[in-house]
């Protein structure tokens, strides 16, 4: 189609130099469009997509910082009253760890997660035991997963490819597709929309192996934690299979004060439940 248009808009026959230039242009165009596809098929990362993802991860990685925040989750289900949860998160990205404690409602109080690397433990105060989970756990049966609260390792888990540009709300975005290297992730296919203005994601579509849209995440707003370091402050997770089911999350009381080491331990969770 492009070549056809090129030929149509030429008013005179092409000379050898012009022809060479046109062929080179066409070759460059083909190379530019085919490279990501070929890279994806060969299991390679698309460099342009890698750059976007690395840029995003460097902005949201809080290495060197210790962050304490309070998240409020409001889960809406069709035909049911809204469910509200409040969790306090202590995060130390330099050690790849976080501790999450439920604070509201009373029925969930004392429950919590402790993550160290890829190991995630759920503490159940009713039985006083730790249950081993993996990063795919949903927090309090909402649409929000635990890995949202720690640092991301996108390029370790996924191959990335650049799909072009798209507009989300009023923002021009780069669209990046993620394909899981191993199928031990919840959503093996993801489409991330990165805002061109600051490189932060505004929307993520989570798809199944057979590419059915399961959940959509909207990063509505970010808060600045440190220069060029961001953490989302408003977030919406929409269940695309359960009509009318969504979880809205707000992030408040963000603090970068130092956190004692013992907070990142199982003992701390046990202590908090007493």
């Amino acid at each position, binding site marked *: 189609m492009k070549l056809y248009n090129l030929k149509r808009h030429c008013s005179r026959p092409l000379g050898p130099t012009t022809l060479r230039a046109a062929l080179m242009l066409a070759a460059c165009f083909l190379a530019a469009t085919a490279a990501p596809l070929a890279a994806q098929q060969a299991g390679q990362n698309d460099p342009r997509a890698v750059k976007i993802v690395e840029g995003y991860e460097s902005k949201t990685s809080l290495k060197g910082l210790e962050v304490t925040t309070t998240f409020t989750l409001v889960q809406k289900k069709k035909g049911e009253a809204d469910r509200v949860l409040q969790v306090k998160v202590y995060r130390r990205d330099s050690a790849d760890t976080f501790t999450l404690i439920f604070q509201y409602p009373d029925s969930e109080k004392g429950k919590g997660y402790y993550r160290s690397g890829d190991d995630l433990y759920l503490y159940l105060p009713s039985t006083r035991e730790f249950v081993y989970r993996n990063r795919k756990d949903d927090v309090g049966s909402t649409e929000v997963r635990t890995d949202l609260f720690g640092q991301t390792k996108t390029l370790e888990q996924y191959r990335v490819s650049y799909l072009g540009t798209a507009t989300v709300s009023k923002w021009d975005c780069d669209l990046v597709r993620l394909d*899981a290297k191993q199928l031990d992730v*919840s959503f093996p296919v993801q489409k991330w929309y990165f805002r061109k203005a600051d490189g932060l994601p505004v929307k993520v579509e989570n798809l199944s192996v057979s590419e059915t849209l399961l959940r959509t995440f909207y990063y509505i707003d970010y808060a600045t934690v440190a220069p060029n370091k961001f953490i989302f402050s408003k977030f919406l997770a929409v269940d695309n*299979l359960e009509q009318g089911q969504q979880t809205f999350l707000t992030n408040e009381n963000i603090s970068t004060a130092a956190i004692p080491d013992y907070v990142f331990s199982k003992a701390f969770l046990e202590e908090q439940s007493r």
Partner: protein
Amino acid sequence: MNMLFRVAIKNVFRQKKRSFTLGVNYAIVTFILVLLFSFSQGARVNITSNLVRSSAGHITISGQYIVSGRVYNGLLRTPEIIATTRRTLGADTQVLPRYLLSSAVYYKGLSKRLSFVGIDTGMEQGFRDQITFAAGDWQGFVDGPNAVIIPQTTAEYFGLGYDEEVLISTRTRFGAFNTGTLKIKGIYTTNNFFIQNQVLAHLEFLRALDLAPEDAASTLYVYLPSTSGLADKRDRLIPALESIGFEVSKPKNDTEAVAAITAASPRYELDKEGRDRERLTLATIDEVLGLVRNILNAVNGVGTLIAAIMLFIIAVSIFINLRMSINERLREIGTLRTIGMAAGGVTGLFMLESILLALIFSLIGTGAALAAAALLRFVIVLPLSGNAALFLNQGHLMLVPRVTDILMIIAIITGFSALFSFFPARRGGKIRPVEALNRVF
């Protein structure tokens, strides 16, 4: 002795009111025990039959395979296991693979988690005889690779009709979500408790949805021409499977045996042994039913306790009745002793009267229990809902009285009557003739 027996028969109903009151108690105890034992036996027969026709084999093979430090539920190399089983236990042994999944289904804003049973329609037709189609047919199901047959209750919940499509979304064995489209090719009702909430699907479809290899299955059900000596047959199969590289074991307890038949496809667990291997567990139907047997024994135990309490009350009644009878019949005792009857004869006469009373009313109680069992088993139809359906067959409560149980119950009650009538009867026998003819106690 013959005379004693005739006298005893005449005397059983001499005090009609008193004998009838005591007799009714015997009859009630017999009635309860016969029905209770019939219920236990019926439940055992019904559960075994329904389980074998739906969710377990005579021998059920389940297992786990460990690959790269991750433990997955299910079996690999199923064609090899099937071939080895048939080679070991005989060519007429039937081995059926199943793929089990629990997954959410979505349709027009509604969702529900359902249990799926994947069957190989080329090998297995048994379900067809156990279900009644409200819509669709078996052939329609067989012909569609993504076809399913759903219970009527599920169809009503979603408002689903024949040929409609629903979305299934499941977390696969690796953790990633996978989705598929199912086509409703049948809506059914069934009398079998174990399949009444299950969605029947194609084994290949569920296996692909779960991202499992082509030689994988959740379980294998082994059906033998004869079920005698199942444990021995299992013991023959174990070394045969070990010789082709499997680690084979028996379930350690009843819970493990039940887990063997209910293992659905699952998320992986982490393994720390550091070597790839395939484990198999071989459970016989007797082991699978061990848990049921224990529950039924507990039910029998509670019933027997109630009967024991009633028998204790009867014991007191026997004692009082007999004392009153002896008091009223002092002149008769005196006459019998005067004409030469020994003390033991008098004791025996009173005991015989008591035993005959127990025997007559036990038989009446048994007759009433058998009539009630027949009524419940063949006439009264109960609704097939909830866990009570476990004990129903075609809507009838499954009560199976056994002759051995009935004889044992009657023997226990008459023996009990003999034991507790002995002491007051002996007291009656010890009265001297002169005292008996002149005194009133």
